[in-house]
């Protein structure tokens, strides 16, 4: 166990800003990508369903 307390954990031996600045951005990058993937996928599914309905009504 490396940390005596939560304060010590967040302080990271004085490097808290750098360590947590790295991990926070890593989490943010993943969150943004997952959000973007979901939005793009939803749009593509909606479009495919619409296209299919259009083809059916034309036939």
């Amino acid at each position: 166990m490396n940390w005596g307390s939560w304060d010590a954990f967040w302080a990271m031996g004085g490097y808290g800003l750098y360590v947590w600045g790295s991990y926070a951005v890593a989490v943010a990058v993943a969150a943004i990508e997952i959000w973007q993937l979901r939005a793009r996928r939803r749009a593509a599914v909606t479009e495919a369903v619409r296209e299919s309905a259009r083809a059916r009504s034309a036939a």
Partner: protein
Amino acid sequence: MTRTTAPRFNLYWFSSPQTFYPLAGKLVPWFAALAVILTLVGLYIAFLVAPTDATQGESYRIIFIHVPAAWMSMFLYVVMAFWAAVGLAFNTRLSSMMATAIAPTGALMTFLALWTGALWGRPTWGAYWVWDARLTSELILLFLYLGFIALQAAIDDPRRADKAGAVLAIIGVINVPIIYFSVKWWNTLHQGASVSVKGSSMATTMLVGMLIMALAYWMYAIAAVLIRVRTIILEREKRADWVRELVAKETLK
């Protein structure tokens, strides 16, 4: 041309968007679950098991993101260029779609490697950024990814966009060995490789934690790319019969 069963094991069978779409859909949850589990194990080792570094103190804990992100940034570029080249040579649509699907994830990994590198460089070197060969070539990698994405976005016809992107991706692959060997070829501020085929200069728990995080990033990247390639298939094939069949059967999702 609608085949519904695979006559025999045949790579061309999987190279059709129609067969790959449901296959990729089945694979995504497995890779996503592996990514989550490996991340939790990796972070546990990174913060609770791995000891304080004798010279860098706690700042070295950035390594658990920095190295996996940097490895993935280079690896994904090579994979992207490979699929782009296959698409260019054999005119296989799915290969080109794979290349297009990899680029955003690769760009994000490159950004993350640069960002965490800056935050690691400040306490260890005293500067967020230096024009060192390793850092500069990694920055060029980011521009290659962004250039590939912008070039493809600028061309309306997807098949022409695939070809133009492929040429850029293939030319840019020369940058990857430059990044990798930059710490040997030039006198860089960036340290040399801690891990090589000859072994590692790191403490065992640090190394294990880093390798597990690298695997976690790998699984994450596969899941993200598979989700994106499925979306791209759907965007491009929305008028195809097989997509209509999936819509009718409500198995599109």
